[in-house]
């Protein structure tokens, strides 16, 4: 049992831990952050017990620190996530993911008739409601919401 616990929470020497990810959003978070192509160690835990969420996901990324822009992307799928920067096995920074005011490129417009879904046009959105996640497309002016959000490949 002791061993099992050790595996789940095993510390990294240097890198980032993203904690408190909703279980259904773990793989989305991996995709948004481009970790599928990351060449160093990535540890993924899901459906772990959590006092805050009941069950949660966690991602540990060795030798990688994220920019504020990258962190804000995580907020779209995991608004309660905690981002923990580790250096020399010590926590050097702990921050919460925050939804930005503007989003570019990585979200697809939910309107199938939008020009961004017809041609190679980078998407741009204004975040009009952070609490309920409502994005207004800069081009077609239609809304993309939590229910309709999809991420670019």
């Amino acid at each position, binding site marked *: 049992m002791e061993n099992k616990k050790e595996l789940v929470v095993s510390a990294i020497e240097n890198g980032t831990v993203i904690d408190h990810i909703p279980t259904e959003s773990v793989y989305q978070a991996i995709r948004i952050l481009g970790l599928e192509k990351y060449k160093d160690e990535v540890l993924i835990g899901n459906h772990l017990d959590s006092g805050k969420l009941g069950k949660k996901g966690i991602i540990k990324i060795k030798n990688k620190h994220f920019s504020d822009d990258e962190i804000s992307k995580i907020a779209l799928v995991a608004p309660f996530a905690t981002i923990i920067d580790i250096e020399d096995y010590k926590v050097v920074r702990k921050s919460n993911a925050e939804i930005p005011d503007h989003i570019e490129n990585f979200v697809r417009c939910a309107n199938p*008739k*939008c*020009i961004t879904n017809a*041609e*190679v*046009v980078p998407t741009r959105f204004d975040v009009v409601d952070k609490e309920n996640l409502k994005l207004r497309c800069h*081009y077609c*002016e*239609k809304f993309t919401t939590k229910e309709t959000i999809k991420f670019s490949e």
Partner: protein
Amino acid sequence: MSTLKGRNLISITDFTKEEYIQVLDIAEGFEQNPKQKILSDKVVATLFFEPSTRTRLSFESAANQLGARIIGFSDPGGTSVQKGESLHDTIVMVSSYSDLIVMRNPKEGSSRYASEVSSVPVINAGDGANQHPTQCMLDLYSIRKTQGTLDNLNIALVGDLKYGRTVHSLVQAMCNFNATFHLVSPVELKLPSSVKMSIKDAGLKYYQYTDLKDIIPTADIIYMTRVQRERFPDPMEYERVKDSCILTADMLKGCKPNMRILHPLPRVNEITTDVDKTPYAYYFQQAQNGVYVRQALMAAILGAK
């Protein structure tokens, strides 16, 4: 010289209230004297990626009356677009051949994107169900002309208030002028809550009705739109409600003497032809006003007014 020189017109919210007024004032001058050859050194490109009769002819008539040369197409068939050229490449190319681009394209947001890649100003002549700002400008012109003011009016909007983009733009624009809105539509085609919210946010009032007769005595403007059969999943529903938004000459008894009926056209059966002969019908003059408003926009954007 207008502050609109070099600007794009993509969405009705791109211009301020003062700028709408500026365009309407310039348009009034063109109504008095439409043939002013002030753009004789300019080339206007009209790119119509889908057919449109009124809008294209109105823009081309406006450009011609100002002496501008026109290049473009009324249908992408036979152009490089059909060969698969991207909108990006078409716009970059055309902007090097012209001083102003007028574009209609079925893809929503295409005009905003075109304005970002074009080296010359772009006027949106309709991007799918999204925006058609010059229609809204000519609606404002027609309202001001028939009422003598844009302020404090009772505006009745009738028909398909859910999908009608002209209705949404007109509501947005009239929120600047302390209007009271009277909304008449079948339950299935009510004004979307986001548009109603913009009325509330402006501190203004709206009232909802299902019977057109109820708004006749109060309206200064009755803005009619078409209720389309294809909007109803159940044909029985369409049959049940289709006559609730038809305006006939008989119904106009008791209306205000200043009341005028507008319609973005084409009309099908929602205004019976006996209304055409009444002094309240204004929809054909409204279409004519489109030429003056488009003259004003082109002249202002090209720095000739």
